[in-house]
């Protein structure tokens, strides 16, 4: 925990706050995939790509964490997959619904250095924080995003709108290249690893592990955005830890030390 500063040299996250925000609307972007558009001026103006917000959902005992998908002016968007109790209730939110959020939380991806070429690698809903990064730094980014099937590709709408060159893969081949994101990534790295300065990845853990391995093999810097069940979201409960490769710090907290961490620090 005392390592937090060295983990994230480029910037310290701003203090999180509570915001009583308001739902502006929701748009469906695929089967069980929706974007919630929220008026949240405080959080929207402070959020960095990779940071998350912690939403209270009616009487559920724990908040739910979601990456910031888009922030512009007063407007904050999160992209979510309908999964369980909480996200099912969220689908019922109508414009005007109060949204109680804590954020922005955690540490995001390091901003690009001048001239740095960054490849964003996203799997499914993992595209959310990457789309925010791509929209903020489009000239630095190219993206590879993978989905199960064509109907889900809409989940990357903000990324495409940002004008980031994006390669799509689908597992069933119904859109873009058939297969997983790791295939085109491996191909690009094999072709010319020096063309990629840094890889930012978010998605299912097996995908992250595979991306991390590829990056290491080719000596490319890699940051991953992790997910873990959370209680506090603010670093105090020690609930959201993942094992590290650093014997001096056996576990890191996804909420406060992450969610974005150097891929090499994670013991997969």
């Amino acid at each position, binding site marked *: *925990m*005392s390592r937090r500063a060295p983990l994230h040299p480029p910037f310290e996250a701003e*203090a*999180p*706050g*509570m915001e009583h925000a308001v739902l502006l609307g929701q748009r469906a972007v695929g089967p069980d995939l929706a974007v919630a558009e929220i008026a949240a001026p405080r959080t929207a103006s402070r959020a960095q790509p990779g940071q998350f917000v912690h939403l*209270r959902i009616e009487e*559920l*005992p*724990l*908040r739910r964490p979601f990456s910031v998908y888009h922030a512009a002016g007063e407007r904050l968007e999160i992209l979510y997959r309908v999964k369980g109790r909480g996200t099912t209730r969220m689908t019922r939110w109508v414009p005007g619904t109060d949204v109680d959020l*804590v954020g922005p939380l955690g540490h995001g991806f390091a901003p690009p250095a001048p001239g740095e070429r960054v490849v964003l690698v996203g799997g499914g809903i993992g595209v959310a924080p990457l789309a925010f990064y791509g929209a903020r730094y489009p000239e630095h980014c190219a993206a590879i995003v993978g989905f199960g099937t064509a109907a889900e590709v809409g989940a990357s709408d903000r990324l495409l709108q940002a004008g980031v060159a994006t390669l799509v893969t689908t597992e069933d081949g119904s859109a873009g290249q058939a297969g997983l994101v790791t295939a085109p990534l491996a191909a690009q790295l094999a072709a010319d690893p020096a063309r990629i300065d840094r890889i930012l990845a978010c998605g299912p853990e097996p995908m992250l592990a595979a991306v991390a391995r590829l990056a290491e093999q080719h000596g490319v810097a890699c940051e991953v955005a992790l997910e*873990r*069940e*959370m*209680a*506090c*979201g*603010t*670093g*105090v*409960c*020690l*609930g*959201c*830890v*993942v*094992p590290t490769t650093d014997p001096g710090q*056996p*576990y890191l907290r996804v909420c*406060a030390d992450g969610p974005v961490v150097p891929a090499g620090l994670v013991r997969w």
Partner: protein
Amino acid sequence: MTGVDLSVDVGGVRLKNPVLAASGTFGYGLELAPLVDPALLGGFVTKGLTLAARAGNAPRRIAEAPGGMINRIGLQNVGLEVFLQEKLPELARLDTAVIVNVSGDTAPDYAALAGRLDAVGAPIAGIELNVSCPNVARGGREFGTDPEVLFELVAAARSRTRLPLWVKLSPAVTDIVELAAAAESAGADAIVAVNTAPAAFVEPVWEGSRLSARILRGGLSGQGLKPIALRAVADLRRTVRLPIVGVGGIGSVSDVFEFLAIGASAVQIGTASFADPQLLGRLPGELAAALAERGCASLAEALGRDRVGGRER
């Protein structure tokens, strides 16, 4: 604010109000400062401390449960030395009472911790002996289930410190009253009831047509624990003379009143803070306002002098 005096003395710990943050849910006091000003609290209890640093349990560590959550953190902490060097100076800056929650592998560990903390003194206002953690192989519930074992442990710690000594009990015992009585006769200054209740979160797993499960064993906290915690406090109040600190599922000022009404002198709040990080900062004001509405000039007036300490005690 309302000018209502909320102060209370819990076994020698002077609190400006009876609302404390529970151990393991408020870090070392500063992490949450952006969300809640620690100076508003009556006090807070630090994360369970052991002599040596502990890594805690391997993940997965938490799960949501009906009305609360289940955790198996397993006492991850920085250990006594780092605590004293790195955390305590930060704590000293907080304008609130700091109670240090301690655990050990053996009774002498507890005594050693008590001795070291005694030597430090300020800003430590008191020590909370955790003999009720359901999530560690050693140094948890084993010390808080047998009255004789508990007596020895508390007596050993008592002999090493003049700091106020609170003993935190588990609800998952056949007879909590007997345990509190043992702690009382060994020289404890207050009873804290309760720690989390042993519980499990289960995810059915199918391998083909065969059913098995992933099981997360841990401690239940939050709203669902409240009726159990209330029962423990109510039963303790009938026989134990020490002040009682109520903990378990408190999430609103009316919950606070329930615990105060049945005999608690103060309360701790954990899980509810996760959903509502500003709750702790709000409660003292809400408490004062509710008392003012009843025409009480002080908490003592509502609870009686004997329960909040003070001269007549």
